[in-house]
């Protein structure tokens, strides 16, 4: 499953080309997919609410805190991760949704 999702991201990543890449994170069934993601500093992660309920996406991780507030079903919320480090991402509404993003140099 993880491999499939990772491969699924490739066309987008290639299309973005050059330095910064885009990565899509799904939220279907109140579950982040993938559950772990490795990106490079400057990459953009698009949190896609492909679920049928409202979500939130936030992190309190040092140097990478963000909060996309309320996210309607069907909407995308892009976040650029500028600094290397580990970012723990949560949904404030659904605490079982947990995602770890490793931002590399």
């Amino acid at each position, binding site marked *: 499953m993880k491999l499939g999702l990772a491969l699924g991201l490739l066309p987008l990543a290639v299309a973005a080309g050059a330095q910064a890449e885009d990565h899509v994170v799904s939220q279907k069934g109140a579950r982040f997919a993938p559950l772990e993601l490795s990106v490079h500093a400057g990459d953009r992660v698009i949190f896609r609410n492909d679920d049928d*309920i*409202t979500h939130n996406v936030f992190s309190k991780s040092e140097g990478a805190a963000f909060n996309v507030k309320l996210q309607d079903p069907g909407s995308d919320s892009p976040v650029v991760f500028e600094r290397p480090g580990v970012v723990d991402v949560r949904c404030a*509404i659904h*605490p*079982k949704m947990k995602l770890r993003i490793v931002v590399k140099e």
Partner: protein
Amino acid sequence: MQSRTRSGALVLGACVALLVGAAAKPALDVEPDLEALKAKYRRPASVPHPDDNAPSEARVRLGLTLFFDPRLSGSGVMACATCHNPGLSWADGLERAVGHGMKTLPRRTPTILNVAWAEALFWDGRASSLEEQALGPIASPDEMNQPLEGLVPKLRAIPEYAAQFEEAYPGEGISNATIAKAIASFERTVVSARAPFDAWVEGDESAIGAEAKQGFVVFNGKARCSTCHSGWRLTDDSFHDIGVRGDDRGRGAVLEEIEGVQFAFKTPTLRNVDRRAPYMHDGSEKALEDAVALYDRGGRVRRPSLSREIVPLELTPQESGQLVAFLRTLTSDDAPVAIPRLPR
């Protein structure tokens, strides 16, 4: 797991589409594939626990003893079980909890039924495990008012506790950590017994009445209760502003910067719900019929944080009655709990 969920959703979707085509009704009014729906409510086969606190008979027995011991409070008269009374479905039946010095607290006592599966503890989710939660009410000046620095010395002064801790956690001694772990181990054994609803889910058509069966369809369909009250415990362990009046910001006080969780409280389990009135985090709804009426109106108050899933439902009186009939099938005949002999 994910692929099973997806295929289940596909089957349901196909079924709904077929029925919509046939009857030209709105999707939410259509009776979905009942067996697929029922499967989402099957009880789990085992109780989860963290790797570093596997249950044992000694740990559970110690936790039960601590749970009922009023010496864990500053006054010496309040135990965990004072508010989480097994005779009242592990709550107190009050609108709002009464704490140290008979002070009425802002929120209702939540049941500890089935908390082994909980993702977040307290009405506002500020603890993420039972071990983390257990010491909170003991130390709170408003609740049991026992400063944690004094807790271990108090228990060490009770001779019979030493052997019980040694048997439960060999070599670890009496510490705040082992107190919390023992209480958590006991709490994981507080699991509601099989209810008539469980028997029906597993195929016994005679286990619940026709009105309750129709209520289950309304619960999952027109009333959309299952959006949040999902799974066998009938909770998504998540936080929603459902439009209860008042200025308690709930999870919003824990995550101040996030508008979507202002006035939001954790979705409570609906197991044994008809024995746990009054309802909501502040006991403001007296009966199940009142709770259903709150949702039917789309909340008692409108504000920016109101969950977008909370909208007027336009239930008929018959549908409201069916919902209540269904909710009553979630109550199990739980065995009485023997109060332990406390160490001296």
